[in-house]
């Protein structure tokens, strides 16, 4: 299996705090790569650097030959990177289906003028976008909710909606920031299945998650972040046995094993 993402020498400091401290790692194509670590370890910061939301001080992020550092987020997205957010970023001014249709933005090309005059080319594109959005919704098991207003939905459903929206962009790599946080047990189980299903379609998944059961279940590689540096990495089994990791997590109190 080839390498999709190559990160090397990544550094990001906020004031005096080095939130990301000289990180280098590779992500293999089509696998689930999990990043774990205690609160404040720098996981979200790492995602922000990978998606162009924030720029690193130094270092490079290479996606299949494209350098991502220095590109604004919408150009990174155009390279096939999609993400969800730890703090939900739903478009509450839109319905569920419209949220997902925004996800299809990169797959369309119509502009303001063709929209204003409602040219036939636009209508055809609208129909395509609608179909793609329906597919993404159905993939996440939300087809019944298409017309619901996003402000009326429960937290767990909104988490799935963010994933559907990100998938609608047909990404090569999907970054999930704590998708199971705040979910109940059934919902967590569903999320677990959904992540596996996404991975099966060939999309490379980067996962940040505190629920160790889920992480160990879905991941093929686990990367442990501590104070912005790599503490350990390996297969889930290796990580579960790693004494340093266990120490950092206070002897398994957070649910490793």
């Amino acid at each position, binding site marked *: 299996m080839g390498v999709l993402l190559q990160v090397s020498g990544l550094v990001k400091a906020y004031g005096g705090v080095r939130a990301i401290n000289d990180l280098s790692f590779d992500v293999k194509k089509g696998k689930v790569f999990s990043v774990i670590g205690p609160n404040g370890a720098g996981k979200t910061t790492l995602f922000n650097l990978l*998606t*162009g*939301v924030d720029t690193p001080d130094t270092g490079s992020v290479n996606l299949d030959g494209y350098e991502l550092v220095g590109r*604004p*987020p*919408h150009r*990174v*997205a*155009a390279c096939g*990177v*999609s*993400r969800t*957010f730890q703090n939900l*970023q*739903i*478009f*509450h*001014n*839109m319905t569920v289906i*419209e949220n997902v*249709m*925004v*996800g*299809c*933005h*990169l797959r*369309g090309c*119509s*502009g*303001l003028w*063709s*929209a*204003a*005059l*409602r040219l036939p080319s*636009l209508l055809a*594109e*609208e129909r395509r*976008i609608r179909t793609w959005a329906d597919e993404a919704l159905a993939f996440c098991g939300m087809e019944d909710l298409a017309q619901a*207003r996003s*402000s009326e939905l429960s937290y767990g459903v909104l988490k799935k909606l963010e994933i559907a*929206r*990100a998938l609608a*962009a047909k990404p090569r790599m999907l970054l999930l920031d704590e998708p199971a946080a705040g979910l109940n047990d059934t919902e967590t189980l569903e999320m677990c299945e959904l992540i596996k299903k996404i991975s099966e379609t060939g999309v490379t998944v980067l996962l940040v998650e505190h629920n160790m059961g889920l992480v160990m279940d879905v991941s093929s590689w686990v990367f442990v972040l501590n104070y912005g540096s790599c503490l350990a990495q390996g297969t889930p089994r290796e990580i579960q046995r790693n004494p340093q990791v266990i120490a950092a997590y206070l002897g398994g109190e957070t649910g490793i094993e």
Partner: protein
Amino acid sequence: MRLAGFYLFAALVALLPVVFPDNYYVTVVGVTAFFNIMLAVGLNLLMGYAGQISLGHAAFFGIGAYVSAVTTVRYGWNPWVAMAAGLVLVWLIANLIARPILRLKGHYLAMATLGFGIIIHIVLVQADAFTGGPDGLSGIPGLVLFGWHVDSDLRWYVVAGAVMLLYVWLSLNIIDSREGRALRAVHGSEVAASTLGIDISGTKVRVFVLSALMASLTGSLFAHQQAFVSPDSFSFFFSIELVTMVVLGGLASTFGAVFGAVILTFLPEFLVVFEDFQMLIYGAILMLIMIFLPRGLFVTMADRIGPMFAGYFRQGIRET
């Protein structure tokens, strides 16, 4: 049906002068209402949908009006050429200032747009060699459409009404498209929008320029209809009035903007008796609506009356 609300509205606009011919409130105040609707619908695209406040929208309206007025009165240009010149000038100015202005957010954006509006107003007052200064400019010729002189109230009603309906139609179309969803996404969450591939600043600039152009064209029509322009019509206060129209109906609702514009056009007509109270009432409306009905009078009402009614206007009704 997507445009059911629009057809209903268009039918109403067409029927009014038939049912009430030569009625002052229809053919005179009505035309003013149409101009206000055009401005409010354009501003709503920027403010309601894209979420970018503008306290200087009257400036573009003024530039359009004054380019038409000055070039036709002083240089004898053909009104249509003058109108196009106004659009070109506004396009240039809007493109020039859009990027730096729209990089700003919240209070800073409010201040910048407000400052721009005031600067333009001062120029209109001070550059009296061209603009006629505070006294304004009169003798602006009427419009001629393929030999048809737009010279009566009723004819202006037809022309302004048609353009107004065109604006409403364009706005409804835009909102229900890829670009329109991008606009609303930028309003909803900039970071999410950008990670989905939307070019935030490009999207904002495009809608800013579009709403500026819409205002400019309205200004040109206004100048020809009134045959007279003075800086008073394009002041900071008018910018605020436009914001009030959009907010009163409900941000992010095309028909809300229409509703707000109509109410605020007719309100002064009925308040003439209380002329001194007009300002007080305006201020109170703005405050009360924003505090108690932040989604706007029209949007709230439409939702209350029920899904049937809301369904017809669904198109224009989005939550903020």
